[in-house]
């Protein structure tokens, strides 16, 4: 994957950066980061970790509500609030550096932006995505206008504002730490307390409403949670990169589990890990912007999850799809051979030297296989000990292959009868694998199925019923 390569490059980058420092001091740095010896590093590490946990939790709800980019709109919509709060603070207190005032402003316009998105969506024909784009750009544009006014204000410098835009992770102070921890604790408590309600809302909003839950209030509560994390996170990682905290850990967690509770826990874990590792790495290599490193760490964890997720991961799915294809091919081959041999009589000999070789050409005709595909299928069956290949002349089943062929054919035909007899029950997605027919239908039903076959088609001595339809 090219993206993986990109991230690899980044780590090489980091490695070289780290190596630039001399070995001794590097070891000291490393130890001090890992052991949290340095007070400032400790503050930053713990803060970003907590922020990651909070972001993972809040982001999980967004992801499951299919609103991931709401965090994007929200974080941009905070700008006018921040600047207005700054102007307000300068006007009344003479300084605009009060963190609390700034994030209050941010929260107000951020939430307002979310509400406007929801309003546009429900009142006009404009769709979700455009509504978010409109809010994002117009609110941000307004923020830029206000900012350009502030920059010309003679009263105060805009130093406090800069950090909001790009994040100044490394310069966090104790007050920031308290804010971030507060936000993390609140989001943790909220997600635990409203676990059941949020799950219902994410899964089936209409049903939740019909049960009498105040879905709009819950929705706003959920957005409040996101707003809280966003405005607090602005300081740590900046206006653009907080979006990553809201999306990436949740998406990573989704790759590992389909359970709501597990997903929240994992998202919090991934968020926390990205915050910890990212901030740690950037502390080791001064000059690297911590926000960016944190996001790249989260992205690396996502790529890992994308590849290795046990059920939805790329590797697992590729392996599964291949196995399914191979299984279908193998069954086709076995059944094809059985059907060819069956032409000699109702209970044919399937294996042994007395059984004639089945020519390649006959099998090719049996299925829509090209000669090359057929050879591949036979080669794989050979490796499993199901067929003996005689290179030029044809194919013959081994004893194991004969048993498998009889079983596959029997199951196939029983399923066919079943689907005809009981077609009102759609057995969608039943797994029609080897022995499954007894497990799913039960021995009694199978006896009845067999009994329902016309006399000529009763199971022969080897237990394989005749095909209920002509074989071509």
């Amino acid at each position: 994957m090219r993206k993986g390569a990109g991230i690899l490059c980044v780590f090489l980058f980091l490695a070289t950066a780290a190596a630039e420092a001399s070995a001794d001091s590097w070891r000291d740095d490393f130890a001090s980061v890992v052991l949290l010896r340095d007070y400032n590093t400790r503050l930053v590490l713990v803060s970003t970790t907590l922020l990651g946990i909070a972001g993972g939790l809040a982001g999980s709800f967004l992801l499951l509500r299919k609103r991931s980019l709401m965090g994007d709109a929200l974080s941009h919509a905070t700008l006018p609030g921040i600047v207005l709060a700054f102007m307000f603070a300068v006007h009344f207190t003479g300084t605009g550096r009060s963190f609390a005032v700034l994030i209050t402003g941010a929260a107000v316009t951020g939430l307002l932006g979310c509400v406007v998105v929801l309003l546009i969506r429900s009142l006009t024909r404009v769709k979700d995505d455009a509504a978010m784009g409109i809010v994002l750009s117009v609110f941000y544009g307004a923020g830029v206008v206000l900012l350009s006014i502030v920059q010309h204000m003679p009263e105060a410098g805009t130093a406090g504002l800069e950090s909001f835009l790009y994040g100044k992770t490394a310069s966090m102070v104790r007050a920031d730490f308290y804010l971030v921890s507060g936000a993390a604790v609140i989001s943790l408590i909220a997600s635990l307390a409203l676990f059941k309600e949020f799950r219902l809302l994410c899964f089936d909003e209409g049903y939740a409403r019909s049960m009498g839950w105040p879905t709009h209030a819950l929705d706003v509560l959920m957005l409040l949670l996101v707003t809280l994390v966003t405005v607090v996170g602005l300081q740590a990682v900046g206006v653009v990169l907080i979006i990553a905290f809201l999306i990436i850990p949740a998406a990573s967690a989704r790759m590992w589990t389909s359970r709501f509770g597990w997903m929240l826990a994992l998202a919090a874990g991934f968020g926390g890990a990205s915050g910890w590792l990212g901030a740690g790495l950037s502390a080791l290599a001064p000059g690297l912007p911590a926000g960016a490193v944190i996001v790249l760490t989260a992205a690396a964890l996502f790529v890992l999850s994308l590849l290795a997720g046990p059920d939805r991961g790329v590797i697992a799915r590729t392996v599964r799809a291949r196995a399914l294809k191979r299984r279908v091919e193998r069954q086709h081959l076995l059944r094809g051979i059985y059907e060819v041999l069956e032409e000699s009589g109702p209970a044919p000999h399937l294996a042994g030297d007395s059984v004639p070789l089945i020519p390649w050409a006959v099998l090719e005709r049996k299925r829509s296989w090209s000669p090359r595909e057929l050879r591949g299928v036979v080669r794989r069956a050979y490796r499993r000990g199901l067929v003996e290949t005689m290179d030029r002349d044809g194919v013959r089943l081994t004893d194991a292959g004969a048993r498998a062929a009889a079983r596959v054919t029997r199951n196939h035909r029983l399923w066919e009868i079943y689907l005809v007899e009981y077609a009102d029950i759609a057995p969608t997605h039943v797994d029609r694998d080897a022995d499954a027919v007894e497990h799913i239908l039960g021995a009694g039903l199978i006896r009845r199925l067999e009994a329902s076959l016309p006399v000529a088609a009763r199971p022969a001595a080897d237990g394989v019923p005749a095909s209920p339809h002509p074989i071509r």
Partner: protein
Amino acid sequence: MEWYVFDTWIVAVGALCAAACALAGSFLVLRRMSMMGDAISHAVLPGLAVAFLLTGSRTSVVMFIGAAATGVLTAVFTQWVSRLGNVERGASMGIVFTTLFALGLLLIARGAERVDLDPGCVLFGAIELTPLDVVADWTVFGVHLEIPRAFVVLGVVFLLNLAVVVFLFKELRISAFDPALATTLGLHAGFMHYLLMTMVAVTTVAAFEAVGSILVIAMLIVPPAAAHLLTDRLGTMVVLSVVLGVFCAAGGHAAAVFLPALTGHDAVSTSGMMAVAAGILFFAAALFAPRHGILAKGRRSPRG
């Protein structure tokens, strides 16, 4: 405040930018991929950085290609992530563009001593300064014209977009309306998707050099969304969104020049004002659109 030739150039650049964006943006909005504009405009950062680090030059052509290439890559990666991981498209967009943006920041920070790239400039743009970068100096009918580079670049991009929209109108329409049908008719919907993404990337890069990424998003999305409320014909919608975009550009700059004079401030950010003007326009369209406006709907609904 007074109006100079300078201001006319700013409006001209803004108007061209708005027109180029509206052409591509109309189809973006209809395909429900509006946020792709946002994603691409953020994600071009590493492209700019890599182009610079590799060539050591800040000549526009190299930067342009680097940035446009990353823009298209954003679309490709988004497609991959959402297909490979079964991730919802919005989320996969968010994953890709934040990652690329972070990568860009990192690259810039690493090469900080050599790279003269200001993330602030990327985000806000500097449309006020575009007339200073003059590429040609002509005298036509006795009028002395100092043509800004941004004007030429955006003009070319506008003409390119116009050509695509005019010549491939039916393909763009069908692949936006019903991609499955387009594919069964032999008009490859996947190809059209990436063509549109290329248009958006090129437009974004050309525009944000001049006007910043926020204005790009505003111009890509807001005028087409407003036009969609005003008309039920695709052709009309495209033309209307171009007109609305140009109107926002002119109105925005005029407001930026004249408004502060009233309140006693210095001039304010033109690109921000243009976005605000677009917002006001959309608000007006949402309220007063003849058939799909909130007021019109409200009047209709009580009767049934």
